């Protein structure tokens, strides 16, 4: 069997286990360091990738550990682009993207912050939802010229 990988990509396939989020965190943090993001930017990347993976495990796969979450880190001179894919049915993207968990009515709700956190900390966030293929979160953090 032959396999190939793009020279600027790192792929991670993991079972849907919350306990494994620390592995995702360590990979995200290491890649952010490799790309010389500063401390705040690195925290943004790691926090956001964790949220996307948490969503995939909890909502996409309903904690079914037999389902795989696929995470791809694509590194270019301009940006880090992270895709997090699950096989779940997806969600109402517009409703979630427009929700504001910081409003007084929502501030003390225990849930509903994951995508808001991603949107707040990354430069671009989008979702591709396909009834056949599942749900993919696409997170982009641009590299600043130093």
């Amino acid at each position: 069997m032959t396999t190939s990988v793009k020279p600027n990509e790192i792929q991670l396939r993991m079972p849907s286990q919350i306990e494994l989020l620390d592995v995702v965190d360590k990979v995200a943090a290491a890649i952010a360091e490799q790309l010389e993001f500063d401390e705040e930017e690195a925290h943004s990347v790691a926090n956001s990738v964790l949220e996307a993976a948490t969503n995939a495990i909890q909502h996409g796969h309903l904690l079914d550990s037999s389902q795989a979450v696929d995470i791809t880190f694509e590194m270019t001179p301009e940006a880090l682009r992270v895709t997090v894919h699950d096989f779940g049915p997806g969600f109402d993207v517009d409703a979630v993207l427009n929700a504001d968990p910081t409003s007084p009515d929502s501030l003390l709700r225990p849930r509903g912050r994951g995508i808001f956190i991603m949107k707040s900390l990354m430069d671009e966030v989008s979702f591709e939802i396909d009834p056949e293929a599942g749900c993919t979160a696409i997170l982009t953090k641009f590299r600043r010229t130093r």
Partner: protein
Amino acid sequence: MKVTKRMENDVAVVTLSGKLMGGPDAESVRQVIRDTLDEGTRKIVVDLGGVPWVNSTGLGVLIASHVTASNADAALKLAQVDKRISQIFMVTKLHTVFETHGSVQEALQSFQG
């Protein structure tokens, strides 16, 4: 996630160690808070010095603990919040909900003021 509790006079110091990310660990945190309130304690410091990160599920645990304490006329304060967790508090405006202190000692002293 390891959860321990000790009393400092009339203040319960609940110390969390590990990642706060939901699952069974989250329930153990909530249970310790509930037990503390059931015992009659109304001043609680949650020491996050051993927590390197939380996800939104972990945030939910902290919020639920805060609400549970408030509903029991108790005060729950946080100590030693990592910069990375502070970043999430800021973007979600939860820094307006939680009273945070740089150290457990500082949090304990705030109850005396």
